[in-house]
């Protein structure tokens, strides 16, 4: 793989809790605009890998290059928060929206942390919500939305600061199959907009939307270039 065009490059990355390795010598390249699925059994290290890529976890060993910059040794909270805020967007299985805030304010929250002016961030949030057809739910609280709508709000939130990388942890895990397909269609649109998507999933039905699948077992990437024959 051509590492120059890599958006994300991990080299022998390990993550250890005490004596136990959650990740062991994982090396991979993910190109800009690539849609990658992480698959494997529970406890194989998929989410740990996603958290390391998302700068939520410090790595124990190895190197992590983001757009060519080695950020594996960065421990400064301000820099890590900046990377998470500007360069990445997170999407969670349980949506993780703030229950007290309206859908619009949830979407705009990362922009608030980025210091964007209120008018601009709300305009951006409204436009994003329009693009996934939930603009009429802007003033509703998360509890007043369906699972599919909440996940769309969460997707809009991940995009508000226009990051290059989208990290999704089981994004369809809490949704019915119809809503799941709709979310995957949004992901395909994002890929077309040259966003790098890294998605943890259990199901082949969802993984088939990805360009390739990285299979993991016991903290190791056993196959990082698997492709399902049937595609979207």
């Amino acid at each position: 793989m051509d590492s120059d065009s890599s958006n994300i490059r991990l080299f022998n990355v390990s993550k250890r809790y005490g004596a136990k390795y959650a990740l062991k010598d994982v090396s991979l390249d993910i190109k800009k605009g690539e849609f990658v699925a992480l698959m494997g059994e529970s406890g194989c290290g998929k989410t740990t890998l996603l958290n390391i890529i998302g700068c939520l976890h410090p790595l124990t060993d190895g190197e992590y290059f983001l757009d060519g910059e080695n950020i594996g040794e960065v421990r400064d909270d301000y820099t890590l928060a900046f990377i998470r805020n500007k360069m990445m967007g997170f999407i969670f299985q349980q949506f993780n929206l703030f229950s007290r805030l309206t859908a619009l304010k949830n979407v705009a929250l990362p922009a608030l942390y980025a210091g964007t002016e209120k008018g601009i961030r709300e305009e951006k949030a409204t436009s994003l919500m329009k693009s996934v057809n939930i603009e009429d739910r802007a003033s509703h609280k998360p509890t007043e939305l369906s699972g599919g709508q909440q996940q769309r709000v969460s997707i809009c939130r991940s995009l508000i600061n226009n990051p290059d990388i989208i990290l999704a942890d089981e994004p369809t895990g809490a949704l019915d199959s119809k809503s799941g397909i709709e979310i995957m269609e949004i992901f395909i649109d994002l890929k077309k907009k040259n966003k790098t998507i890294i998605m943890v999933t259990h199901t082949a039905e969802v993984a088939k939307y990805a360009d390739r699948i990285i299979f993991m077992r016991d903290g190791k990437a056993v196959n990082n270039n698997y492709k399902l024959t049937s595609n979207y």
Partner: protein
Amino acid sequence: MKLEIIKMALESLLANKTRTILSMLGIIIGVSTVIAVFAIGQGAKKAVDDQFQGLSANSILVMAMRGKTESSKLKTADSKVIVENCQHISSATAVIQENMAVSFESEDGTFGILGVENNYFEMSNIEIDKGRLISEEDMDNNEKAAVLGSGVAETLFLEDEEIIGKNIKINGKTIEVIGIVKETGRSMGKSSLDDSVFLPNSMAEKSILGSKAFIMIFTIADDVENIEIASKEIVSSLRTEHQLRDSQADDFRIMDAGAMVGAAQDAAALMSLLLTAIAAITLLVSGIGIMNVMFVTVAERTKEIGIAKAIGGKRGDILSQFLLESVVLSMIGGVIGIIIGNSVIFIFRNTELITLAPSLIGIIIGFSFSVLVGVFFGFYPALKASRLDPVDALRSE
């Protein structure tokens, strides 16, 4: 940005109204207490000032020994003994005092009855408003004549009523009103001078108060510098007059103006200090309450903190959000405390129970303390929240 975070803090506080109100209670009580303390302190100072207003720095007061009024030989005539025998005393006047019921027709009330000498008014800077003051003749003839304080006149008589020459009753005795003095706003002992009836002390002692009434003799030294020597002269002349042997203690006590004001101010300051200590303890306890509530809040919202960190919230953002919550909590408590404290002052300031004077310093200090409590006790929970590991926080339920 900050405004938005303040709004979020308010929304979070409103989401748990009962807890917010309960945790504010301590601050409310603390700030109300601070405000009340200052009002009581100011009130006590004002009461001391009122009591001793008009008392010149070279005044010396002679009284029967505390609790020994009956066994003391101090009598009204001692004022003349003091003036005659003390070289450094320029004037002296005796006052006997008791509270009694006074009536005019169907109106009545309890007022201070002051038996005074004719020079009392001049020495106390009390001026006549209507009629005349007590004269030497009134003294000599034991006239049943009364000069009323302005408050007594207002209570017993109608506004436009001709008062001079009317007969009032004190302890069943009929006394003619000969004058009304101007409002002074001062008090003597427990009685307000405005709510007092002044009688010639010879008549008052004989016909109304009897010989057991509380006796005071006001004297004026010829110079402030001579207070000490004048006091010694008084002691010497009264001991001779009372025929006390060397082995016997004085049956009277002497206080000069400085000592009187100082003692009263010390008592007022001590009371303020005690109340301030109570207010400080209340605020400390309320601060611990806020800290406790903030820890519970942080524990409850651990997942929220994880999400905020995942979407780019910096430690500073989390710290300021939780800190602002505790500060907003304590500030609202402070404002409510100010309102309640001042309402209590407003209610009680017009009663006889206690002298209260509203104090701006009390409000400023009370409010500042409430904010300080919020910052101080909110900081540690907020710091703990900001340092949570994002992945651990996200995992919590």
